[in-house]
């Protein structure tokens, strides 16, 4: 994990309409949407953790993970509905199923997941219909990974350069970030003897996220927002927190206090990543150079016969 300054592209020469944005800045509200991304990741990964715990007889871990999955899903839904311009029409989300719309697909993931994770957690807590609860949990676990990663498609499937051009890496960033969140939360609330898988999940997630995030930063100008200004700071905080948490896990995974501390750091890292990615998108939509310069280069390549690759990078 290196912190050397990225060699940024020199200030490019381009024309614009009085420097005004070409794209519209996303109207998604802060903190609603970054929080939704975080909770989706936490819930999705926690459902997987819970299933694993159930299969390998780790009741404390299972309980925390199930509650995290249900809580995450519920919190995410509230955040999503609150962000709507007309919240009273949230059921319109289920009016059509549209594969080209990650939000439509996402709604058909979040809704069942929420129900199943909720049922599993309720049955776990109340002990009522345990076998049905287990079945629901398994269902939730199956929907967990898609829930944790479809949100990457949500942001990537837009015209915002920083998001769209990173559509290969963002799913892994979100997957890793979700794993860290689930692992981290469990490390905080579950005694260390049962929290082994949580530690490993968090560590695995950290690796996946750092690798993917590094891939994004290599994309030159379009990736600039991930490295500069507020979003840049947030991404650096996330990177630092992930590294610290991972080190703490490797070194002192056994000690209850150190493990809880590491868990909290993982959570912070995951949150910082979500806000960082979100604000990088806002910045990328605001500055016309991120639209004009890459598109002019693509046009130039098209004109000079480089027509093969349709997409940049």
């Amino acid at each position, binding site marked *: 994990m290196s912190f050397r300054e990225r060699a940024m592209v020199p200030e490019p020469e381009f024309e*614009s*309409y009085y420097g*005004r944005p*070409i*794209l*519209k800045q*996303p*109207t*998604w509200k802060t903190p609603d949407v970054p929080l939704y991304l975080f909770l989706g990741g936490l819930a999705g*990964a926690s459902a*997987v953790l819970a299933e*694993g715990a159930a299969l*390998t007889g780790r009741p404390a871990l299972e309980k925390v993970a199930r509650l995290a999955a249900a809580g995450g899903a519920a919190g995410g839904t509230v955040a999503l509905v609150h*962000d*709507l*311009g*007309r*919240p009273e*029409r949230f059921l*319109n*989300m289920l009016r*059509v199923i*549209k*594969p*080209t*719309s*990650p*939000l439509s697909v996402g709604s058909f993931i979040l809704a069942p997941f929420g129900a199943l994770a909720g049922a599993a957690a309720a049955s776990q807590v109340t002990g009522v219909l345990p076998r049905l609860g287990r079945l629901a949990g398994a269902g939730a676990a199956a929907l967990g*990974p898609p829930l944790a990663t479809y949100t*990457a*498609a*949500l942001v990537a*499937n*837009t*015209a915002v350069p920083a*998001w*769209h051009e990173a*559509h*290969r890496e963002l*799913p*892994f960033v979100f*997957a*890793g970030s*979700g*794993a860290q969140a689930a692992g981290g939360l469990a490390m905080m609330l579950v005694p260390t*003897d049962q929290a*082994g898988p949580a*530690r*490993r*999940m968090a560590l*695995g*997630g950290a690796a*996946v996220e750092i690798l993917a995030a590094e891939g994004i930063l290599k994309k030159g100008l379009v990736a600039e927002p991930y490295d500069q200004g507020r979003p840049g700071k947030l991404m650096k905080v996330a990177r630092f927190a992930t590294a610290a948490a991972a080190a703490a896990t490797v070194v002192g995974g056994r000690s209850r206090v150190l493990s809880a501390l590491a868990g909290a750091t993982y959570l912070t890292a995951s949150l910082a990543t979500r806000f960082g990615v979100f604000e990088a*998108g806002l910045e990328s939509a605001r500055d*016309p150079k991120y639209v*004009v310069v890459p*598109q*002019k280069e693509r*046009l130039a390549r098209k004109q000079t016969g480089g027509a093969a690759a*349709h997409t940049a990078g």
Partner: protein
Amino acid sequence: MSTPVESSLWGRLDDPAADAGYADHPKRKGFFTDTSVCIGCKACEVACKEWNQVPDDGFLLTGMSYDNSQQLGASTWRHVAFVEKPIDVPAPVDLGMPTIGSEDQGAVSGDAGVRWLMSSDVCKHCTHAACLDVCPTGALFRTEFGTVVVQPDVCNGCGYCVPACPYGVIDLRKEDGRAFKCTLCYDRLKDDQTPACAQACPTESIQFGDLDELHERADRRLAELHEKGVDVARLYGRDPEDGVGGDGAFFLLLDEPEVYGLPPDPVVTTRDIGSIWKHVGAAAGALVAVGVASFLGRRR
């Protein structure tokens, strides 16, 4: 890097209405905006607001030449852009008889001449409309006329269409919560009427009609201008092979698109939806892998 197969999601699509499921439907309607005859009078902005009862949105002197409407948005469905560009041509030595249409459209005057570009911007009603593709409620839909319209009785203001639009056209109206944009006067089309802006436009810079016929007119006008020596003229959004499959509202511009605040090479995000879902799947797999791996280790 696998290129997604040309499907009805991307690339040339001659009949979007049919593709949207209309058995028999009128010919595709659209706008051709010839900015070389635009006089920047903004009749289109007022006629559009008057007809659609769009609220006024702000009294602010921007200093952007005569453009105080700033950009398209939820309460500005037509926006006239103004660009003042000094001509760095040396003082005309001997123009003699003024050639019909001097070497570029701008009027040359005295020493440092000036060009004043004006253009009435509008929703592009793309062949492949990202806003429509990402709309989770089906509020945005393809009409029988091949245009793209937001249904105000369905939209719940999720805002997904806003970052999806490659031209930055559609937006949420804060005091209302829903998304709004040009409907190409869908209600007037139902009664075979001309959209309000096209009817008002004093110099027919905004031309409304069947899209294929507008394409022919635009090609003729472009040739006419090139023949007159106005070789800065180019069409924008006319090519059915471009990144959005060609626009329902396309333009004749007199400078680079970005000078007018238009993206040079817009591409519908749906073109990469295949690759996006593929990578989401892979990432979900990675998460499963991490999850499983976390439990395989020695029992601790």
